[in-house]
């Protein structure tokens, strides 16, 4: 049973309640309990109403059908409640007697107890008083024994007798009283018995009544329920019958309709059939005529065909004859061909054997050649090894010879300078300044300076910047051989700082924590070291490339925004920005160029630097740094790959400057000075001749000879 059903079913019991309720709790009652109860009921009722509303929509449909169905259910429920109540009331009525008897018994017991208590009290009192009296009497007996006079004795006996009689009387009275009580109790007992039998009779009566009642009501309710069911069944039957009849009628009507329709259709079809038949007949006739005509034509054609066939037969017979002849010829040819084939087969076999032989031969040849080749390769490798070895030795030798020669030359130069100095100081009385040339400082063969690592450069730079800060103007970058021309140190530093600040993510967090206590510069250095290792920048060149890249990027940005820059540069930069392959080439070129230009930059670097105001790095937006870095790393990959062959080339020394160097060494004493010396020499010669002239007269004393000697020797030594 679904909940709505049960709700329906419980409705009657509500009605029952209403009818039976005498003390419905009301909100205006004086009793607070009752008011609370009433309010609770009201709230519950409201909640229920709301719930029903919510459910109402889909309950409505059900309810209607249920109302019919629930008639019997209602009746059942009603009967059940009625019967339950009847039973309850009946049992209460019957048990009421028991309860009444119980309470009577309790009362009786209480009373009995009270009476018993009183009786015992009374008896005890009696015992006490009688004991007293008895004692009195016994004490008097003692007194009597002392009496001598009979009269007195008699008197005393009399009184004693009286006393005893009194005592006996008291006892008797008590006994009679008790007996009286017993009698009344007996009466009471009889009464009680009667009462009990009455009660039992009443009980029986009531039970019987109850049984009768219950039976009657049960029968009634059964009858009611049956009636309800019957009514419901009748209703159901009637409704079903109605429905059935309606359906039957509808069915009949439909049947009739269908019949009519069918009749009509049959007629229609008959008509159509007739029409069709006529039409078919006509058509049949037409086709028949047509077919007959066709037959005639076909017969004619057949005749024709037959004629053709005969002709053909004759032709074919002739052909057959011809073919037979041909066949014979063919057999002859065939035999000839067979013979030919046999011959050719022989030739083929011969050729095959020859071919096989040749293959063998060539294989052998090939083997020998490959072994030769291997041997040669081995030899070549050995040769290379030897070459390398010799190259090293040669280098060493070259160096030694160079050093020796240089030493010699330097000695000579030193002597020349010495002489020059002596000439200047002693003879000319002029102050002498030692000439300063780059090649004087050079020791060993001229070669590329070893490439510094990027970090070293940075360190240097930072150190330098530190010094700069300390003594701003004193030292100008005269020795910055390593920096490429366009880039000032400041720019580089700024760019590197920027990089350092922006790409902190490349540094490990551990390192960062370690760096905290360090000085700023050191901190930068270590950071940059980490960043470079992350980016894969190893050498100086890479570093400059990076800086260049930054600058170019910025320039490109400027050009793209302002469009004032010459288009050529812009195009180069664009190329460098976009096409990494071409750019790498460009950079290669740049690199080699830079190497070449290193010495020139000595002289020209400063000028050009000043000319080309370097693009300032603070124009580079910090946000762009990452993009630039990305592009740079992408670009850097390629040159790395093409590095290996480059290394080999580097080993080849260029000796273009050697002659220059040595030439320069020869011209350590410039021609002007030689002229001076020549002039001096002539002057000195003159001086000597004059001295000689003077000397002759003074030959006797030898000391001027000593004086003139040394300068001569000097001059001679120089020549």
């Amino acid at each position, binding site marked *: 049973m679904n909940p709505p059903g049960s*709700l329906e079913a*419980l409705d009657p019991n509500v009605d029952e*309640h209403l009818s039976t309720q005498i003390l419905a709790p009301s909100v205006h009652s004086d009793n607070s*309990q009752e008011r609370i109860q009433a309010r609770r*009921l009201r709230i519950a009722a409201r909640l229920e109403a709301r719930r029903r509303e919510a459910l109402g929509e889909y309950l409505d449909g059900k309810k209607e059908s249920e109302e019919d169905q629930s008639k019997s259910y209602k009746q059942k429920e009603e009967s059940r409640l009625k019967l339950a109540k009847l039973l309850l009331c009946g049992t209460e009525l019957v048990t009421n007697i028991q*309860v009444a008897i119980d*309470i009577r018994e309790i009362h009786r017991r209480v009373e009995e107890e009270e009476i018993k208590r009183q009786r015992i009290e009374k008896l005890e009192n009696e015992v006490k008083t009688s004991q007293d009296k008895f004692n009195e009497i016994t004490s008097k007996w003692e007194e009597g024994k002392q009496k001598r006079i009979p009269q007195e004795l008699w008197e005393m006996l009399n009184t004693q007798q009286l006393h005893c009689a009194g005592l006996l009387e008291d006892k008797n009275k008590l006994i009679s009283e008790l007996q009286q009580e017993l009698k009344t109790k007996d009466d009471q007992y009889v009464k009680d018995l009667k009462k009990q039998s009455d009660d039992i009779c009443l009980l029986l009566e009531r039970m019987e009544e109850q049984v009768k009642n219950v039976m009657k009501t049960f029968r009634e309710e059964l009858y009611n329920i049956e009636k309800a069911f019957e009514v419901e069944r009748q209703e159901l039957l009637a409704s079903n019958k109605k429905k059935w009849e309606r359906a039957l009628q509808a069915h009949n009507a439909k049947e009739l309709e269908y019949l009519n329709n069918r009749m009509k259709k049959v007629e229609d079809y008959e008509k159509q059939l007739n029409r069709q038949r006529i039409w078919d007949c006509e058509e049949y006739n037409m086709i028949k005529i047509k077919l007959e005509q066709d037959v005639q034509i076909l017969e004619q054609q057949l005749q024709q065909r037959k004629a053709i066939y005969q002709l053909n037969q004759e032709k074919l017979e002739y052909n057959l004859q011809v073919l037979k002849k041909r066949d014979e010829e063919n057999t002859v040819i065939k035999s000839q061909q067979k013979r030919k084939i046999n011959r050719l087969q022989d030739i083929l076999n011969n050729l095959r054997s020859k071919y096989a032989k040749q293959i063998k031969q060539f294989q052998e040849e090939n083997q020998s050649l490959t072994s030769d080749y291997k041997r040669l390769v081995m030899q070549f490798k050995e040769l290379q090894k030897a070459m390398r070895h010799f190259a090293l030795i040669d280098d060493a030798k070259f160096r030694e010879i160079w050093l020796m020669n240089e030493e010699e030359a330097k000695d000579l130069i030193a002597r020349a300078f010495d002489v020059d100095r002596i000439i200047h100081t002693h003879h000319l009385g002029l102050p002498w300044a030692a000439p300063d040339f780059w090649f004087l400082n050079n020791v060993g063969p001229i070669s590329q300076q070893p490439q510094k690592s990027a970090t070293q450069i940075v360190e240097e730079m930072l150190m330098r910047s530190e010094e700069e800060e300390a003594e701003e103007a004193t030292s100008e970058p005269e020795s910055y051989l390593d920096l490429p021309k366009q880039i000032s140190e400041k720019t580089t530093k700024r760019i590197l700082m920027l990089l350092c600040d922006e790409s902190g993510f490349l540094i490990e967090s551990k390192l960062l924590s370690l760096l905290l206590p360090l000085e700023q510069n050191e901190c930068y250095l270590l950071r940059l070291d980490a960043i470079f290792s992350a980016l894969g920048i190893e050498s100086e060149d890479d570093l400059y490339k990076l800086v260049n890249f930054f600058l170019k990027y910025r320039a490109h940005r400027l050009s793209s925004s302002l469009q004032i820059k010459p288009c050529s540069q812009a195009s180069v930069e664009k190329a460098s920005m976009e096409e990494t392959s071409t750019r790498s080439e460009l950079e290669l070129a740049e690199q080699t160029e830079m190497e070449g230009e290193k010495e020139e930059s000595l002289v020209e670097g400063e000028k050009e630097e000043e000319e080309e105001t370097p693009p300032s790095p603070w124009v580079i937006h910090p946000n762009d740094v990452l993009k630039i870095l990305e592009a740079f790393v992408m670009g850097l990959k390629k040159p790395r790959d093409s590095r290996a062959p480059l290394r080999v080339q580097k080993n080849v020394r260029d000796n273009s400057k050697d002659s220059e160097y040595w030439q320069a060494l020869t011209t350590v004493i410039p021609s002007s000075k030689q002229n001076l010396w020549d002039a001096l020499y002539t002057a000195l010669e003159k001086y000597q001749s004059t001295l000689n002239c003077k000397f002759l007269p003074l030959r006797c004393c030898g000391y001027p000879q000593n004086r003139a000697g040394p300068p001569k020797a000097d001059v001679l030594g120089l020549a």
Partner: protein
Amino acid sequence: MQDTVTTSALLDPSHSSVSTQDKSSTGGHTSSTSPQLSKPSITPVPAKSRNPHPRANIRRMRRIIAEDPEWSLAIVPLLTELCIQHIIRNFQKNPILKQMLPEHQQKVLNHLSPDLPLAVTANLIDNENYWLRCCMHRWPVCHVAHHGGSWKRMFFERHLENLLKHFIPGTTDPAVILDLLPLCRNYVRRVHVDQFLPPVQLPAQLRPGDQSDSGSEGEMEEPTVDHYQLGDLVAGLSHLEELDLVYDVKDCGMNFEWNLFLFTYRDCLSLAAAIKACHTLKIFKLTRSKVDDDKARIIIRSLLHHPVLEELDLSQNLIGDRGARGAAKLLSHSRLRVLNLANNQVRAPGAQSLAHALAHNTNLISLNLRLNCIEDEGGQALAHALQTNKCLTTLHLGGNELSEPTATLLSQVLAINTTLTSINLSCNHIGLDGGKQLLEGMSDNKTLLEFDLRLSDVAQESEYLIGQALYANREAARQRALNPSHFMSTITANGPENSVG
């Protein structure tokens, strides 16, 4: 056709007899009634014995048979019938039952006399119908429902009861009962005796004294007034489950003597030994027998640790606090489910000890202390015990001089307890306030179905409201029983419905 038949019949008599038989049977169809159909096949012997002579006649008489409406083969009694009659007649000497076909057995059983000696029938006949006839024959009113619906059991139980009721120790031969024992031991489950006659001396002297107007009162001081000793009987009954005894004498009329109603120590001791030995006993009742504390303790001691005892009824006796204490001990040392101490003399201490046992008991379902005098002290103790007890469902405290304090505690119990279904507090002095408190407690209770407060000075209003709450609980319980799955929903649906009314 007939000619051919006759010739063949003449040629082969044995065969013809069969054919004519068939003929006659088919011919008889038209005239005779249906019972004849089966008879020829069953009774070939009498037919053959008679046939040789009237064979020709039969053929000739066929037409006459058809015309004679009174002719019937049923006139002839069948041999089986005769045999069955004979068996029935001689059943006492030669009981044959099991060897027969079931239908014949039925027939025999239907005609056996109910007066047959039990020695013959007891272990032979299991048919309920026979025992029904026996019972109906002996007793005009029979409640078979009181005997487990078995007529045989009822017959034996009542027979035994009858014997015990009229057994007079000393005069009646104990063999009367002991002889019955092997016959009824498998069928008796319940022994209900509501009178035990005292030994013969008294009645023997009473009966003459009856005529001589009670002149022999002086000689009645013999101490040997012991009743029948149940030990042997109880030990013999292997299926005994219920023992319902009343040591009482009925219909003594004017021969009343206090001695008649004595339940002596020896009686008590022998009874205790008997029930102790009986391990199948489930229900033991000893009512209206003047059992005092000492005897109650003897009996209860014998019941301690009894394996199956479920119900103990010692109502209408003289048990006081000591007996109650014994009962309390029994509660904690047995599986007792029902304890009835109604109409005794238990007072507050006894009730307290019972309450103490009840507090931790998990077996007891029903406790009846009607018409005692436990008063508020005992009532409060019981109420305290009920706060922890989770088993008791029925409690009868009618007529115990309880008043408001007990009601207060009980109302608290009502709010907590979820097992109690029935409480009876009738005939107490609960008073108006107590009634209100009980009503309060009732408002939180959803399990109590019966609560009797008649004649206990409770206001009519509260009694009515309690009745309403009980009604709601009963409806809820009914719903729960009808469809346990919708328990919650019906509760919620019910609450408002009821509260509207």
